[in-house]
C-alpha cells in the first residue's frame, strides 16, 4: 500500500490539499492534511524499524557466530546503518520514490533538496515517510551480512553495500512502491516480501557462493557462541516488525491494526511450525529454532500483511515455519553452499513462500484484491512475476558487483585473519 503515498510524495501536494479540506477542525498551526495520529504512528514505526537493525539484526546475527567474530558481526549492522542512511538521502530515496517511470525514480529528490518542513506524503510529513523508508533500505542491506559472516573484508562490505543499495535496492523499491513496473502489474507486496526479503536473500546466496565457505567449514565446531543474543535479537525483530508491517499502512487505522494482528498470528504459528518439525526430526526443539521460526514467520507475512486475514496468516505462518526449517537444514546441506547464518534459507525462501501465499490468501475485503481462494488464481501468477523479476535482477547485479569487488580490492580476509577472528584482525578489539 505504500505506493499510494509514494505517488503523493512526488510533490503532488495540491492533490492532498483538497483532501485536507476535510480536516477543517485542525488547529491553526497544523500543516494542511497532516493527521497527528498517523504521524505519531509513523514516527514510532520508524523508531521500531531502526531498532530491528540496531540492535535487532546485530544481536540476532552476532549470537550465531563464534566468539572471535561477535563484535565484527555487530559492526556490520552498525556501519551499514550509517552508510545506507547517508546514501539514502543523497541518492537512494530519489531513485526509489521521486516519481519516475517503470524502472527508476528521478533525480528530483537528490540530497532531499525539495523537502521542507511542510512537505507532505499523504497525511504525514514527507520527512517521516523518507526516514521510514530509509530504515527499510538499512535493514535490507544488513540482512545480507548473515551470509558473509566471519570472512568478508570490511572495506569490501562497505563498497558492496553502498553500490547495492543504490543499484539494486532503490530500483526494486521503485518497481514495487515507487509507482514502477511491479506495482503496475498488480504485484502485492505490502511491507517488503520481494523488496526486502527475497532481495536480501538472493544477494546473500550469491555472496555466499562467490565468497566461498568459511575456513574449517564442515570440519571445525562452528557452534553459535551466544544463542541468547540471537533470542534477544529475534525478539526485538518481532517487536520492531509491528512498525515494519503495521507501519506500512502509513496510517494508524484498521489496515494497520489488521496488519498488526496477522503479523502476530503468522509469527506465532511459524514458531510452532518450526518447533514441531524440529521436535519430530531432531528430537529436541531448539531455542535457536524458535527464534529462527519467528523470523521465518515474520518474513513470510510481510508481503501479505495488508491483504490477508487471521486465517490466512495462520496458514502462512505454519507453512513458512516448516518450509524454512527444511531450507535451513536440508536444502542447504544438499546444495553445499555456506550461507553462514541462513539468509537465503530464511529470507529468500520465506519471502517467496509469503509472496506466493499472498496470492493465495488475499482477501478482497481487507486489501482490495482477492486471491486464489476467493477465485482469483491469476494473482498467484502475478505474485510469481514479482518474485522472478526480483530474483533475476538482484541475482545478476549482485553477482556483477561482487565479482567486480573481488577483482579489485578483494572480498575475503586472509586465512590467518579469519582464524584469528575478525574482531581482532579487522577491528583491533576483542570480547573479554
Amino acid at each position, binding site marked *: 500500500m505504500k505506493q499510494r503515498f509514494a505517488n503523493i510524495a512526488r510533490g503532488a501536494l495540491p492533490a492532498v490539499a483538497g483532501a485536507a479540506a476535510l480536516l477543517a477542525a485542525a488547529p491553526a498551526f497544523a500543516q494542511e492534511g497532516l493527521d497527528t495520529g498517523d504521524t505519531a504512528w509513523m514516527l514510532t514505526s520508524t523508531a521500531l524499524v531502526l531498532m530491528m537493525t540496531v540492535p535487532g539484526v546485530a544481536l540476532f546475527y552476532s549470537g*550465531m557466530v563464534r566468539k572471535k567474530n561477535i563484535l565484527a558481526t555487530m559492526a556490520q549492522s552498525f556501519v551499514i546503518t550509517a552508510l545506507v542512511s547517508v546514501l539514502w538521502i543523497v541518492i537512494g530515496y530519489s531513485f526509489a520514490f521521486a516519481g519516475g517511470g517503470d524502472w527508476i525514480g528521478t533525480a528530483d529528490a537528490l540530497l532531499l533538496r525539495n523537502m521542507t518542513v511542510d512537505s507532505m506524503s499523504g497525511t504525514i510529513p514527507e520527512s517521516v515517510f523518507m526516514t521510514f523508508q530509509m530504515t527499510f533500505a538499512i535493514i535490507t542491506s544488513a540482512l545480507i551480512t548473515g551470509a558473509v559472516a566471519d570472512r568478508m573484508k570490511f572495506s569490501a562490505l562497505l563498497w558492496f553495500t553502498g553500490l547495492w543499495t543504490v543499484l539494486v535496492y532503490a530500483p526494486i523499491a521503485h518497481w514495487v512502491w515507487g509507482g514502477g513496473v511491479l506495482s503496475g502489474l498488480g504485484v502485492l507486496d505490502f511491507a517488503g516480501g520481494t523488496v526486502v526479503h527475497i532481495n536480501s536473500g538472493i544477494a546473500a546466496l550469491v555472496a555466499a557462493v562467490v565468497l566461498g565457505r568459511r575456513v574449517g567449514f564442515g570440519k571445525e*565446531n*562452528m*557452534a*553459535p557462541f551466544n*544463542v541468547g543474543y540471537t533470542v534477544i535479537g529475534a525478539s526485538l525483530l518481532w517487536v520492531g516488525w509491528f512498525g515494519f508491517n503495521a507501519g506500512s499502512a502509513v496510517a494508524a487505522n484498521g489496515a494497520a491494526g489488521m496488519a498488526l494482528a496477522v503479523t502476530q498470528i503468522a509469527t506465532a504459528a511459524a514458531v510452532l511450525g518450526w518447533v514441531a518439525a524440529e521436535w519430530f526430526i*531432531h528430537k*529436541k526443539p*531448539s531455542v*535457536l*529454532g524458535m527464534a*529462527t521460526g519467528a523470523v521465518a514467520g515474520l518474513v513470510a507475512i510481510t508481503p501479505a500483511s495488508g491483504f490477508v486475514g487471521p486465517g490466512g496468516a495462520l496458514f502462512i505462518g505454519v507453512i513458512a515455519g516448516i518450509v524454512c526449517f527444511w531450507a*535451513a*537444514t*536440508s536444502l*542447504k*546441506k544438499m546444495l553445499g553452499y555456506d550461507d553462514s547464518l*541462513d539468509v537465503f*534459507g530464511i529470507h529468500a525462501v520465506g519471502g517467496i513462500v509469503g509472496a506466493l501465499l499472498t496470492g493465495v490468501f488475499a482477501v478482497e475485503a481487507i486489501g482490495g484484491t482477492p486471491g486464489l481462494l476467493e477465485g482469483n488464481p491469476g494473482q498467484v501468477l502475478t505474485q510469481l512475476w514479482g518474485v522472478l523479476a526480483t530474483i533475476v535482477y538482484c541475482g545478476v547485479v549482485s553477482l556483477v558487483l561482487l565479482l567486480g569487488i573481488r577483482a579489485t580490492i578483494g572480498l575475503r580476509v586472509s586465512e590467518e585473519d579469519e582464524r584469528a577472528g575478525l574482531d581482532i584482525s579487522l577491528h583491533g578489539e576483542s570480547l573479554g
Partner: protein
Amino acid sequence: MKCVMAVIKPFKLDEVRESLLALGASGLTVSEVRGFGRQKGHTEIYRGAEYEVSFVPKLKIEVVIADELEEQVVEAIRASASTGQIGDGKIFVFGIDAAMRIRTGESGAEAL
C-alpha cells in the same frame, strides 16, 4: 611434598573442599577444565549442523600436601567426589620438589 591433582564433577567441589579441610589441608587451587573419557559428551544441532561436543565440563583440583598426608588426601577426595556414576574422574599424584609462600618467603612444608 606431593601434589594431588584430581579431576572431578563440578557439583562435587564443595564436598571435596570440606573433606580436605577436615584433613587439615590449608589450601587448594581449582580450574575449570573439560574432560574426555568413558563418559561421552553430547551432540548439539544448530539449524541442522551437528557438532559433536566430546568434552564434558569438569573441575581440576590441585592440592599440595606433606608426603605423609598423601594417602588420606587421596582417599578423602575419592570418598567425597564419588557418585558411582561414570565420569566421576581421576586422582593423580606427583612429587613437588620445593614450595614457597609468596607473602612471607617461607619455604618447604611451612609454605603450604
